[in-house]
């Protein structure tokens, strides 16, 4: 009995640590709608700075003072980031801030190694909380007890702050309806900045308080960021109490789960999230998101199929790409094939995101399923390559059909997080089912047959399939189905009222996108000759998101350019320097500032404003039609 009580207490201590970080993320998202990918980076910075300060300052005051100063210092960094970077892009398409914070995260990961060195650092134990307290014959670390108390205390302080101060009332109002708050004359700029600073403070405090228990190292951020998102979503976005309950739920399930299934930790949080979201689509304590007043998506210019000139330009581009083997070496061709495959992958996600308005955080699941499909068919069934390529993506299709059915019942960030949960479940199966999937050692020896072997042939194959997939996706966009899908994106209620079966349309789109991703994955398996759980991992899903956002989410095919730019840049940087994350992150941040609608999005804006100027004197009817807002309310 005593053991179970102590195990429960241990779980509570883990919950408090998780809650501190999650609460910060929750209030940032609630008010600013920023999916703050850099939250983990701020957590890590908090730990590093606290390490330095607590090593320098002496005594009990030095330790606790150091922790507090570290959290404040990182909060100041957060405020600077918000003012210099995020303020510029609040009006950008949804999720664009994710791209900026992703760039920052990459930079911080390299910067901490540059500043603090590559070794794991061991911080001091907390003065007054070094030892353990005996309970029921078991030792409970006193620092655990401190954390157990701290969690509810922070929750209480936040509650008072939100219910008893004017600032808190404004924050709650903005969480509920930020347009109304703005309309009532509240200075949103400073509200956002202060909320962001407060959220970052909590993240850094959470990181700093880990130094008596953990080692400080450069991968701390990735370890926490996903888990924290999960906690926030299980609790319900914007609900601090929800985050607390969710943290306790997740930590206790883990503490007791490992007693029965020691391997469960790897997937537990995602299983919990999937179950919670399927049963309660807005998390435990969340409310349905208020209907946005602004029309989502591109409302200024309607999408149009390519004009004749544009079509010719595309054909010329493709023809030039097809001529690459005449001039390029084997290495360049293999990179070319890889880029073509990522064009397929990014285009498939782009279809779901921009046409369907459904941003998936777990799109790699279907890419990876396609790759594993090929691996199974080639290695276990011994089928010829052409059949593997044709049938492999079906595994992606099947996965998308099953998971998509549940996912499209939700919307917005909840949809995104459910897709992430499914992807992680698939990933953990690939990782854990060693006899079939080979676990993390993967499946090796999936090389192309003679007809597709050789860099030039494989490049042509990949390019051909990429052109076909992108063309088909474009055709679908401008088909009746595509219009219906855009209808569900722009106004779910109206599209349903005119008889569109929205969920069915969205589900179909999900399956189309999943299958297309599976096609990319199938090719990828042959390109690399091997398949690993990495092909399903969060990293790949994030890469796809970045490519789409970089290209421009409000365009028809921006992801094509986004994929080419991102993939070429990252392959080149990784090859040229060991600090590729620092430079790549920096470039992404610069692109975010220079192209707040994505690269293609900005180019189109410039082209249209230039055309509008040159068309203005003649004022043709066609020009008028083009400036008519498509989805204006």
């Amino acid at each position, binding site marked *: 009995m005593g053991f179970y009580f102590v*195990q429960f207490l*241990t*779980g509570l201590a*883990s919950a408090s640590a998780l809650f501190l970080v999650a609460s910060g993320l929750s209030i940032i998202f609630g008010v600013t709608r920023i999916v703050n990918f850099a939250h983990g980076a701020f957590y890590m910075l908090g730990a590093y700075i606290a390490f330095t300060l607590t090593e320098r300052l002496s005594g009990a005051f030095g330790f606790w003072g150091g922790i507090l100063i570290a959290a404040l210092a990182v909060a100041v960094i957060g405020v600077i980031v918000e003012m210099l970077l995020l303020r510029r892009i609040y009006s950008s398409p949804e999720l664009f801030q994710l791209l900026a914070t992703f760039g920052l995260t990459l930079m911080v990961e*390299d910067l901490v190694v540059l500043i603090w060195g*590559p*070794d*794991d*650092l*061991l911080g001091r134990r907390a003065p007054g909380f070094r*030892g*353990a307290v005996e309970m029921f014959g*078991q*030792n409970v*670390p006193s*620092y655990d007890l401190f954390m157990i108390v701290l969690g509810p205390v922070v929750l209480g302080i936040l509650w008072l702050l939100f219910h008893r101060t004017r600032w808190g009332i404004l924050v709650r109002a903005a969480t509920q309806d930020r347009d109304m708050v703005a309309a009532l004359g509240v200075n949103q700029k400073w509200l956002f900045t202060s909320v962001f600073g407060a959220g970052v403070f909590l993240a850094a405090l959470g990181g700093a308080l880990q130094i008596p*228990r953990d*080692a400080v*190292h450069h*991968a701390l951020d990735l*370890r926490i960021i996903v888990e924290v998102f999960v906690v926030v979503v299980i609790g319900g976005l914007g609900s601090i109490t929800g985050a607390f309950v969710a943290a306790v739920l997740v930590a206790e399930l*883990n*503490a007791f789960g*490992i*007693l029965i299934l*020691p*391997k469960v*930790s*790897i997937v537990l949080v995602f299983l919990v999230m999937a179950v919670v979201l399927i049963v309660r689509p807005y998390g435990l304590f969340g409310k349905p998101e208020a209907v946005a007043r602004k029309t989502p998506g591109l409302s200024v210019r309607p999408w149009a199929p390519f004009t004749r*000139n544009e079509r*010719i*330009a595309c054909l*010329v*581009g493709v023809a*030039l790409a097809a001529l690459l083997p005449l*001039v390029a*070496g*084997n*290495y*360049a061709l*293999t990179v070319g094939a890889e880029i073509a495959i990522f064009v397929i992958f990014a285009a498939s996600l782009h279809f779901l995101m921009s046409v369907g308005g459904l941003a998936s955080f777990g799109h790699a699941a279907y890419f990876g399923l396609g790759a594993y499909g090929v691996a199974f068919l080639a290695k276990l069934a011994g089928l010829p390559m052409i059949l593997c390529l044709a049938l492999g993506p079906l595994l992606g299709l099947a996965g998308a059909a099953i998971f998509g059915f549940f996912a499209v019942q939700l919307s917005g960030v909840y949809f995104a997080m459910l897709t992430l949960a499914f992807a992680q479940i698939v990933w953990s199966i690939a990782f854990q089912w*060693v006899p079939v999937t080979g*676990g*993390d*050692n993967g499946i*090796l*020896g999936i090389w192309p047959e003679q007809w597709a072997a050789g860099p030039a042939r494989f490049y042509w194959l990949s390019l051909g399939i990429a052109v076909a997939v992108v063309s088909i996706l474009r055709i679908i966009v401008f088909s009746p189905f595509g219009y219906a899908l855009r209808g569900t994106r722009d106004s779910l209620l109206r599209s349903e009222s005119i008889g569109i079966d929205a969920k069915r349309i969205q589900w179909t789109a999900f399956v189309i996108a999943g299958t297309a991703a599976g096609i990319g994955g199938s090719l990828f398996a042959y390109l*690399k*000759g*091997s398949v*690993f759980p*990495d092909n399903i991992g969060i*990293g790949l899903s994030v890469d796809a998101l970045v490519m789409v956002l970089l290209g421009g989410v409000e365009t028809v095919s921006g992801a094509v350019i986004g994929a080419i730019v991102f993939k070429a840049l990252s392959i080149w940087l*990784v*090859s040229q*320097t*060991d*600090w*590729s*994350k620092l430079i790549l992150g920096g470039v992404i941040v610069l692109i975010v500032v220079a192209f707040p609608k994505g690269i293609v999005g900005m180019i189109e804006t410039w082209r249209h404003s230039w055309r509008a100027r040159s068309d203005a004197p003649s004022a043709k009817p066609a020009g008028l039609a083009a400036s008519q807002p498509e989805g204006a309310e």
Partner: protein
Amino acid sequence: MKRRDLLIGASLFGASFAVALAGSVTAALAQAEIKIGEINSYSALPAFTEPYRKGWQLAVEEINAAGGVNGKKIVVISKDDGGKPADALTAANELVEKEKVAMLAGTFLSNIGLAVSDFANQKKVFFLAAEPLTDAITWSKGNRYTFRLRPSNYMQAAMLVDEAAKLPAKRWASIAPNYEYGQSAVGVFKKLLMAKRPDIEWVDEQWPPLGKIDAGPVVQATAAAKPDAILNVMFGADLVKLVREGNTRGTFKDRAVVSFLTGEPEYLDPLKEETPEGWIVTGYPWNDIKIPEHDKFLKAYQAKYNDYPRLGSIVGYQTIKAAAAILAKAGSEDTDKMIAAAEGITMPSPFGEITFRKIDHQSTLGAFVGKTTQKDGKGVMVGNTYRNGKDYLPSDAEVSTLRPKE
């Protein structure tokens, strides 16, 4: 529009030709050097790879100062794989297709080692795996082109089992990271220990995810099973958390602990005053080694970097030394000749003479086994003995059944 695209196209062609030309010029200049392509997880695992890089840089310097190999200078072209197998393959492809390296070397993670080894098999390129520990790379997925330097999982388990079998402990529990390395380390250790000690039983196993241990509940659950001894395979930051939590809760008191890799400076040094007492570990006690070759290496390393070597330094140093020895014996950069030369080659190393076995391409480099203790607030290994790798491998008859037939 069309004209502009044509223009872009033309300039693209021009640029490509210029690149191709530049490439052939460098190729002409490169006659007097041998290129070795090296891949490792520099950005993902800097704590290991920074000393590793210093190690191989020292080796390159020594080799070239002594006149190079076959009258040519050694040049190492090093690439980062970011800890991802797919990126490692991109790098391997660049090294082979663009840089035209004579051989590939390096890698840390097992899955990356396997991916590159399969690539080497496909492209018929020589690959000297430096660090990956998985048994598969020389056995179940072994191939003609791949050789491995470090003592494998099996060998390290066998070294530890020697000591573990002497313990009176009957009830054992394991804590290992939930991925291939952890699983096979526990698997081999169990098998070998049970063969020597049929009287023991395994009472608990914990499998926290790599890099994400929630140490409190794990330690608590292990203690609840009341084991006499614990087998630990956690390393890095996970190890720090585990040790801190276990120290506070008194989990390791009056219990024997046998631990993989914990004596390597990369993992032992961060523990500082938390270093547990009396764990039986494999590792690298750099300041307690009385081998003349090691003295020479240590002096040269400290003189060049003003820092002490980690195990990664040894691995990096010996990888390039081994590559040079193989190239010298082959007298050529031809892959088949290098394979013939490498099979059974004997060479000096900081740990004494080592051999790359013909039967499975595994080197006989060994490791040190000792016990952890604290000295001046730092973790050290005491009572160290060097275990020669050749004594900890299965019989040739068994090994030949493990490798796929060619």
